[in-house]
């Protein structure tokens, strides 16, 4: 096809109408689901770029902190106290990274009187690592939200759905690939990058300690087993807990003709407000809120208020039995399955925009 040379007349001399039928090619084995997932990763590099970007920020921040710290403080402590303005000898930042979406509560308290107990010191050493986990999980949620909003919308807007549908890949396969990406692939990528970042963070801390000498918390071991267990558990819990959120967004993206974000957010919000005005109740609002931020209390032992304002997070807070037996989890998954079924039905019928 190098040059469009032959005229239509020439074409006819090569009588294709008399050409014998070519023997049917042997059918090759195919993996439609695998390649559909690959396709999602090609189309949405944010799935790995966004967590990597957060990791890069954390590591650069830790490096800067390590370099600008002169003796006396380990990088762990430095990261934990990065938000404070007053000298660390007088105040300490307390940050609680709850694993239910990484709501981070920060407050600066005056440290007076007795030095911190060993428990408090252990918690402070672990804190930056939990903060990294929380930041990664928030990133995961944001990436998943925008992924799902485009999932069944973009292919209709750019009309590429006409290409996808010209291939023998069913709507069920396609939609399942589009829910597996935010629920399985993205969490796995996020967790791997989060753990790698935490190991790097630890190495930077150790290096800073080695070069700067004695650190305030250097004698306290980093509880790596707890950090990994909590990160992995939180990732799994959140992915399951948020499944109906993802499915809702995916369903709306398959339905909306424009502005899927607004269609996904405004109607539930409007209904919640209407309920409040009409009946004075807040069932829907609380339902939405618990779906967004309620995973923590469903999946973890809610710790007693810490004696000295320092939270402790660890393996002992993991309560898988409570999570697995919570109706919220299963009702959510059921709702997600229903909405995915609707999304499949919609993809079959909806035309390019």
């Amino acid at each position, binding site marked *: *096809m*190098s040059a*469009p040379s*032959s005229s*239509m*007349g020439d*074409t*006819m001399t*090569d009588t*294709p*109408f*008399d*050409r*014998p*039928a*070519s023997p*049917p*090619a042997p*059918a*090759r*084995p*195919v*993996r*439609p689901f*695998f*390649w*559909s997932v*690959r*396709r999602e990763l*090609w*189309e949405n590099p944010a799935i790995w770029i966004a967590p990597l970007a957060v990791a890069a920020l954390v590591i650069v921040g830790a490096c800067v902190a390590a370099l600008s710290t002169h003796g006396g403080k380990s990088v762990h402590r430095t990261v934990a106290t990065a938000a404070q303005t007053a000298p660390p000898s007088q105040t300490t930042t307390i940050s609680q990274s709850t694993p239910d979406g990484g709501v981070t509560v920060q407050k600066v308290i005056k440290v007076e009187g007795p030095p911190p107990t060993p428990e408090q010191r252990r918690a402070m050493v672990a804190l930056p690592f939990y903060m990294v986990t929380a930041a990664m999980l928030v990133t995961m949620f944001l990436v998943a939200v925008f992924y799902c909003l485009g999932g069944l919308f973009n*292919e209709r807007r*750019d*009309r*590429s*759905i*006409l*290409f996808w*549908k*010209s*291939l*023998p*890949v*069913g709507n069920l396969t396609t939609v399942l690939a589009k829910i597996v990406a935010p629920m399985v692939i993205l969490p796995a990528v996020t967790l791997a990058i989060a753990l790698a970042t935490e190991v790097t963070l630890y190495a930077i801390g150790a290096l800073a300690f080695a070069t700067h000498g004695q650190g305030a918390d250097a004698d306290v071991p980093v509880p790596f087993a707890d950090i990994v267990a909590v990160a992995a558990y939180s990732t799994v819990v959140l992915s399951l807990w948020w499944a109906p959120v993802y499915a809702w967004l995916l369903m709306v993206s398959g339905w909306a003709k424009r502005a899927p974000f607004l269609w996904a957010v405004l109607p539930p919000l409007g209904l919640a407000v209407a309920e409040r005005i009409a009946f004075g109740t807040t069932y829907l609002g609380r339902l939405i809120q618990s779906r967004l931020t309620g995973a923590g209390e469903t999946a973890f032992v809610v710790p007693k208020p810490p004696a000295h304002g320092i939270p402790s997070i660890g393996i002992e807070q993991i309560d898988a039995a409570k999570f697995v037996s919570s109706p919220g989890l299963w009702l959510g998954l059921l709702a997600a399955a229903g909405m995915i079924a609707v999304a499949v039905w919609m993809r079959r*019928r909806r*035309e390019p925009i």
Partner: protein
Amino acid sequence: MACIEARGLRKAYKTTVALDGVDLKVEEGRILGLIGPNGAGKSTALNAILGLSPYEGELRVLGRDPWTERDKLMTDVCFIADVAVLPRWMKVSQALDYVAGVHPRFDRARAEAFLAKTQIKLASKVRELSKGMVTQLHLALIMAIDAKLLVLDEPTLGLDLLYRKQFYDTLLNDYFDNSRTIVVTTHQVEEIQDILTDLMFIDHGRIVLDTSMEALDARFTEVMVGPDQLAAARGLGPVRERQLFGRSVLLFDGVDRARLAPLGEVRTPSIADLFVALIGGQDKGAAK
């Protein structure tokens, strides 16, 4: 078994009837041109054939119901539904990987050989290609698929003349054989005139003309007559009359050429002339 068989195919939207009881039969190994004005129901018919939208009536494509058995059907059916619908973010190599990964009848070597003859690079993204190149890429993918039915809906819309010509030449020379069936719609009828074996006109959701090209030659005749023969020619009942260089050109349906030859210069009308006569004239109420 006919490749496509429809009886009473009907599709109504809220305010319009897009297909109004269409009967059609396309045998294997044919190249059918489906021609009609905008909004005539061409795309609606193709969407039904491709299982992209539900319909009323009876429809079988390769012996299957395209709406309920679409997933199986798409192994044997391929289509280009519009120009440049390949996803813009995709790399050429990814397109090859993907189609090879999901299509049991895709011959990757063939697609690559075809691409090697173009300016398209495997590392390019679709968004970096010109519209013509995107069409070439799509054609390369489609032609490497051993499908029984290929449907082309305005596959060359907006492309320049060279790409359009090349598109149909390649299709005919490198793809078509007796076991395949091609259905094509286009507004540039003169470009596909010579490759078609069958022709179908559709207007207002109805089939206006359904004929093989051989039958068309025998059935329709155009005569260029001078003023002296005009009255005699009009007496034979032309379907349409038009003026060309001061002479009258009359189109006849089913009138023996032997009777027309004495009246003037006889020839087979082009599809475009026929289209204007049968569909353009209908709107004006001039034709039968």
